[in-house]
């Protein structure tokens, strides 16, 4: 069974990968059909994940675990939104209300409280680990904030030149990190395509 699932994964992966490198209509069409299948399977897997979320929270309420009442709120909100969403469609004004009244305000409020939590994290960093790297990190963070912060008199004199100077170093480091991530992704992808890693089950 493990060999069959690995063959499925390797064949699907290779057919999609060929589409990147071989300029032929047949190869590209096959690659696009298989990619569409993966999109459909991924979407269905996400739906099953949402169904599982309902079961997990209903079980939490049934077993009277701490915070079980919050689970009831989650399940009710999920079922109501899904029900109306399936019937009316995501573009319906009622569904827009769910976005405007709940999703956007909560997302931006969560982002807003980062203002305090990031300051708190910086203070903790200085109290727990005072070394050269922490100092460089915080000095650069504060300097960049001062340089990009809008002031009543406009941009501070010389701030753009200083920002460009700091950015030369940060872009170098960022490029190194990006290349490292890409190399890691490449290696992980190759391990899946060679059947060394089998994240789909079967060790």
């Amino acid at each position, binding site marked *: 069974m493990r060999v069959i699932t690995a063959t499925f994964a390797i064949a699907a992966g290779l057919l999609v990968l060929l589409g990147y490198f071989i300029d032929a209509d047949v190869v590209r069409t096959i690659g696009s059909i298989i990619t569409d299948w993966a999109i*459909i*399977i991924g979407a269905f897997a996400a739906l099953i994940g949402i169904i599982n979320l309902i079961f997990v929270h209903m079980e939490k309420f049934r077993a009277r675990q701490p915070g079980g009442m919050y689970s009831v709120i989650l399940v009710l909100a999920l079922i109501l939104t899904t*029900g109306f969403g399936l019937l009316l469609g995501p573009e319906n004004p009622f569904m827009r209300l769910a976005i405007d*009244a709940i999703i956007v305000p909560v997302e931006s409020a969560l982002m807003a409280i980062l203002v305090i939590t990031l300051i708190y994290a910086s203070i903790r960093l200085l109290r727990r680990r005072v070394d050269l790297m922490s100092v460089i990190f915080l000095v650069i963070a504060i300097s960049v904030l001062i340089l990009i912060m809008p002031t009543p008199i406009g941009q501070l004199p010389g701030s753009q030149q200083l920002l460009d100077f700091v950015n030369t170093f940060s872009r170098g*480091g960022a*490029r190194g990190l990006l290349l490292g991530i890409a*190399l890691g992704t490449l290696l*992980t992808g190759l391990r899946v395509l060679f059947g060394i890693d089998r994240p*789909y089950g079967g060790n």
Partner: protein
Amino acid sequence: MSIDFLAGLVGLILTLLIFSYLIGDNPLFRLATYLFIGVSSGYAAAAIWHYVLIPKLFNPLRSSDPTQLLLAVLPFILCFTLFAKLLPRISWIGNFAMAILAGVGAATALGGAALGTLIPQSLAAMDMFDLRGLDRAQAFARLVQGAIMLAGTVAALGYFQFSASRAPDGTPKRNAFFEGVAWLGKVFIAITFGTLFAGVYMAALTAMIERLSSMINFIRQLAGI
């Protein structure tokens, strides 16, 4: 009561519930986050149904073209095997669908990493040393800038090189050259994260200003000011 007013009122209440986290984790904050997770998961489910499953799966299943029908039946069967993943005893049935997902995901990630990051970033690093059309001063400035960026890139990559030989006392130790490169890489990474931190902080500050101004506007509207 208009829809806009209702959205504003609910948004104001939820914002206050989320801000209550600043005095510590509390039931009001949890209420808002659970409600948020429920609504956003429900919205995601509706969007998946209407934007992916209906056009890509259910509409072709109703097609009279046998090729289209066949191309839709296969993913339809694979999708239903995923339900087996909810039952541990027969969960292996869902492995075929997961294998296609993992294979396509790996190929897409591989192609994306090579064509979207490795090649363009390497070309951009080389591009810094293209001095054509620049006068002497500009060329020198660009050369220095390119050299600093290249040093940063190489050193940051070197920081993640963990191969080491054994020291006489048995502890793993990198050689002195790689140790120096890794130290320099750490400095560049600290500068990069400092800059990223500042960017994230500015984004959070913008969100805070937007939330506060929308709250003030709503209260002013309510009071008729």
